[in-house]
């Protein structure tokens, strides 16, 4: 068990969100999409240039830029 930034997760890796530190508009947008602590997620893929990242969460696919993923901490089972 270890906590990593969403940016550093590998494709296919699963985890549970522990903390979202984004403020203001970005923070609200992230939370509106259901990215709140306690939510399980899985990395579904990355764009051809490695950014943005596609995440499977709450039965849908959300894409976000790496610098947006930097505000999201995820507890993963095993290190990537």
């Amino acid at each position: 068990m270890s906590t990593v930034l969403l940016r550093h997760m590998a494709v296919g890796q699963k985890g549970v969100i522990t903390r979202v530190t984004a403020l203001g508009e970005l923070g609200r947008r992230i939370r509106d999409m259901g990215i709140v602590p306690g939510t399980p997620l899985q990395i579904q893929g990355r764009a051809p240039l490695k950014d943005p990242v596609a995440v499977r969460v709450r039965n849908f696919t959300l894409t976000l830029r790496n610098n947006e993923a930097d505000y999201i901490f995820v507890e993963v089972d095993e290190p990537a």
Partner: protein
Amino acid sequence: MKPMTEYLIALAGNPNCGKTTLFNAITGARQHVGNYPGITVEKKEGFHLFNGKKLRLVDLPGTYSLTAYSLEELVARDFLVHERPQLVINIVDASNLERNLYLTLQLLELGIPVVLALNMMDAAANRGIEIDVEELSKRLQVRVVPTIARSGQGKEDLVTAAAAIAATDPPWKPLHISYGADIDPVLDQMEADIKGAQFLTDLYPARWVALKYLEADEQVLQKGKAVNAELSARLEAIAESVDAHLQKTLETYPEAIIADHRYGFIAALLKGGVVRNKQKTDRLYFSDQLDQVLTNRFFGPLLMLVILYVVYKFTFDYSTVPVAWFEAGFSALGDLMGSLLPPGLIKSLVVSGIINGVGSVFSFVPLIMFMFLAIAFLEDTGYLARVAYMLDRIFRTFGLHGSSVMAYIVSGGIAGGCAVPGVMATRTLRSPRERLATLLTAPFMNCGAKLPVFAMLIAAFFPARHAQMMFLLTLLSWLLALCMARIIRWTILRGPSTPFLLELPPYRLPTVKGLLIHTWERTWQYIRKAGTIILALSVLFWALMTFPSLPESERQLFETRRQQLQNQLPQPASSAAAADPSTASGDQEQMQEQLLAIDRDEALATLKNSYAGRFGMALEGVSQWCGFEWRTNVALLAGFAAKELIISTLGTAYSMGELDQEQGVSLGERLKSDPHWDRLKAFALIVFIMLYAPCLATVTCIAKEAGAFKWALFSMCFNTTVAFVMAVMIYQGGRWLGLGG
């Protein structure tokens, strides 16, 4: 006859939940698209007659939430509180219930009566999701109706339920959610204060206002300050102390706690068998498998190129034929009017001013229809979101958004597009700054109307390098458009990029009805534009190039020349002429030729004397910096009305008569033999035409899409400045390097 009872019903829901499909299914073709006053967000309204009652349905913009951050959310929220519809039909995607219910909770907290349309029941069933509709309805205390918008299933039940509830005109009953020990007591206190002072309670429920103060909602704070500054300041102070406390003890913020509790509420709501998932959640569905190919690192970009190229070919190839019909129709109309009207100003106004001007713009109609059909298809299938996802990294570097690519390509990113549908295509972009930067730079692309001018100049001055030159120009337009976007985003549209956070909806086959309605709406908006503003501007440009007319003395000179010529003609009716018809017709032909030459000279003199001509000559002092003389200036001025007019005006200015675009070759030969022209000047002109002010039709669209006339004005000035600077750099730089001559 007594007026029919009318109920106002709003449709709310997340993007991609099938809201518009359901709206189309209920209202059919009885709908109307407009804008909310003063902004560019679309307002769709439609009617449905039910048991002698008229249901007026308003399709609110698709939103994930009801905050004050985006225009769409503000519009949706303001509509609900100001227009007070009897009822909201909240459409939720049954296969994605948790996130969709987040908006539902906010509607319920506002207190507005809600009917829940549990849409996409088929997709949910396919994914093994079972929903206990009755239990959900009981727990939420709202009517829940399962629907499948695509097939119209459940539509009648939904309308019946909505009409029945609207008829009782239920009062607003705000839902109270517990936000935990840190927030609830404060919320109670604030609610009491707000109720006591009747603070904003004419619009919003008291607890909702308190919640917005904790969330630091800009709009509510502003309204509060205006109504009761003292109480507003006190509430803000309370919110700040809660904020400080939460940061110190839990390292979090009221907003975050509120969102957490809403999602907690939803989780509790769906527990105990309300939603059952029969399949493992991490199973790969067809849509995900498709994504493994379509967004693959190697195949993704490759397939994207192919798909975008096909869209482009579809739009521009298939519209060629109807565009030609339109053009032929307008030209026939012009000929007809030309033969009916007596020669003179009226005829010139009707034929050259009105029919030519409006015709050149109306000819785009089929093109715009095809373009919107193609874009609606890409958007509704879900592929456009993938394009944005794959290209965002590149476009972000220039301050744009992944979705900007569509507008660029349609505008002529693949040479031969059109900036009018390109500017309209930016509607798929939801980030305001990125959208504006995209629509301001898209006209730099090489649209189809610029190409004949390029072709003429390249054929004349760079005959051996046609393909290379065209390729170079395409690269140059992309490079300059992207760099200018970067500059715009660093200066007048400075600001951080809007959060990306884009949902990739599952791939779906769009409904034909949806595509057609969507396409027609957009096209109709364009037609209305062309019929009004563009008509007025076409007449203005015609006047500029016609007035003041030649002074009588000069006109007399041309008349005398004609007379002289006709007098030279050998008298007919002689037996010699009858015996040898070939000589006679030879003479005739020659004379016709000479008469036409006089006409052309007169047209040149008229043009030179007109306001446009004077303007062109007045500008020579400046334009000589990039090597243009007055003839070019006039042609460029005409090109502002429509780029197609550049060649025909150059033709007049070089005394060659009005040329068709296909006749550019002879004009090219003429320019090549003119001592004033050389390759350097030709290249400077090409670059200038590529970059300078967009045509009237585009400028009109920019004004409409950007929501303010100042952006249209900015576009004209900015683009012309950029074009001038580039052309001067090319011409002066080239001369310095000794490339001229």
